């Protein structure tokens, strides 16, 4: 080992300039690697980030170019839709009004002997899913409405078409007794959650 070190020392002494050049070269290489490799990695990250930002800018440019501002008609349509959405639920205080409207519409389609009752709706509430519409939430109410009336199947079909949007038909049952046909509609009522 000593001999090896001595010969190494002798070789370095004989080629001191080359040793110095080699040392400086190694130093320069180390410096270059120390600076270059992180810079290369950073450049790769920045390049990817630039690509992402370019895509965002391009997408936003094309989006802006294709964007059409809302017209008056569109704004009006939004309002109308908003009103319709409001009608998708009836507040508890409106339950009588709702029942009255349903009874009136049943009579209007030709039903006779219309009777509207409130029923415990826990069952239907658990079976029906809430409505999430236009940023508003409507939950099934804890009560339901049962409509019993006398009339034909066509009248039953007509009544279904004019029921308020705050209710959903859960079941329809018709029974004949002699010449009289009785229809029973079980309705789920929705009320706004907020």
């Amino acid at each position, binding site marked *: 080992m000593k001999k090896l070190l001595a010969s190494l020392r002798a070789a370095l002494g004989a080629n001191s300039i080359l040793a110095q050049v080699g040392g400086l070269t190694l130093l320069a290489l180390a410096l*270059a690697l120390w600076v270059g490799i992180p810079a290369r990695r950073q450049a790769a990250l920045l*390049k990817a980030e630039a690509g992402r930002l370019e895509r965002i800018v391009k997408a936003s440019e094309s989006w802006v170019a294709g*964007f059409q501002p809302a017209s008056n008609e569109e704004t009006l349509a939004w309002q109308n839709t908003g009103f319709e959405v409001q009608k998708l639920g009836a507040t508890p205080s409106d339950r009588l009004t709702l029942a009255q409207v349903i009874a009136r519409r049943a009579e209007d389609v030709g039903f006779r002997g219309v009777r509207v009752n409130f029923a415990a709706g826990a069952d239907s509430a658990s079976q029906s899913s809430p409505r999430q519409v*236009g*940023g508003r939430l409507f939950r099934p109410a804890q009560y339901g409405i049962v409509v019993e009336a006398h009339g034909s199947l066509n009248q039953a079909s007509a009544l279904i078409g004019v029921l308020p949007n705050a209710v959903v038909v859960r079941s*329809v*049952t018709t029974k004949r007794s002699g010449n009289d046909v009785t229809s029973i509609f079980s309705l789920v009522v929705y009320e706004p959650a907020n």
Partner: protein
Amino acid sequence: MSRNGRVRLFGAFIEPQGIHAVEYAREANGISVLRHLADESRVSGMADGGERLATLIGAGDGSRTSVSAAIRGFGSGYQIMMLPHAAPDILRPIVRRELARLYPDIDNPRVDFVLGGEIDRRRRERADAGAAPLELLAAAVPERAVQAFAEELAARDMDLDHLTVLPQVLQRLYQRSESGFEPTAVLLYLPGGPILGFFHERQLRLTVEPPFGIDMDEAAEVQTILEQVERGALYLRQQFRGAEVNRLLVSARPDDQERIVRLLQSQLEISVAPLAPGAGSPATLAALGAVLDADAPSSLNLSPTAVLPEELAAQTTRRRGLIAGVALASLALIWALFNVVNALRWSSKVDALATQARARSGALTSMRGVVDERQKNAQAYTFLESLVADRTRLQRNLRAVARTTPPGVRLEELDLTRAGEEWQGGVGGMATGSSGADVLLAVDRFFRYLPREMPLRNLLLTQLEDVEPSDKQRLPGMRFRFTFTAIPNAQP
């Protein structure tokens, strides 16, 4: 570098007994001697020799002064040696080691050598017998002494371009004067003592410097020379397969030349002739021999200004190493710089794009409200449409039951209960007809027509039973019940 572009050329021979120099000029067919210079007082050392040679040459008129010199003594040494056939780079360390062994007193020797050629004393019968060994003339001088010599000259703006030893001078003089191949002896009767060189096939094979005492008379000197000639001849005969020395070329002082030639001729059985007659004294010939060696393509040069092949190789290695190192370091640094610049460039680009994106984002914020409203409205509209569609499906199912009820069938009950998007249904009724077959036909029609009008699955007849005819009509009748699942759309 000369101030006027001219170069003064000098050849010199320095030995402890004095200094002899010639100024010469180059001509088309050789050189012409312009003047002879001599300082025959004793020289104490190389530094002294350099100083006195410079004084002898004298200051120039701004011209560069180039000096080619031959030395004898002053610690110098030389050896004709035989080594295996090899490249000079390989031979050089061997020669250096051999000279160091032969001249251990030379401190830090400066060594050079010239290759003489192959010597093949054996009869080689096999083609693969190997290459013949090389004969070479090697010389060494103390580095410090020649440095001092050159520095003394340099102090007077003179360049020691060439420094050689006396045997090499003999070689050049012989080559210049003779073209024959016959074995020849050459005698230079120098002031410091004679030197004998023996040539075979135009190569110097042996040098002898006979030891002359101060008290020796001319007869004793001649006798000594004769003995040395005989010994040299014997050496050549032994070493070169019976080569016989048959000539002796002599250079002595011009006044004594003819007499010495006659004297030697009378004692020897070989031809004795003057060497370069009319060229001047032996010392002048030695100085010119140094010039001839300086001009030769392969010379023996011990001047410290001369770049020795090993130094040249070392310089080349150093230069290559330096170039490679600088190139490698430069490439690495350029690569690193490129990456840094690239990173900075991408960084500035990212900054610019981020600024641009932020500016776009501000413009988009106002539009986002419209977009959100449109999305909300579209969702609400879709929901309302689905609500209508749901009711329409239920209406369609009710109407379908009413429409498909065939004659002879009276609906007694109908129930539809929501099950997600489907409806679980049940239809019950009474079928009557003129015969039992008619009754069954009515039930069957109802059973078959119902799927045509209403998309459904799992249509099952769950009840079919006879009903006692009433007393009045006495018609057969059957009570039936179907169950089914009404689906939103017809399945393929």
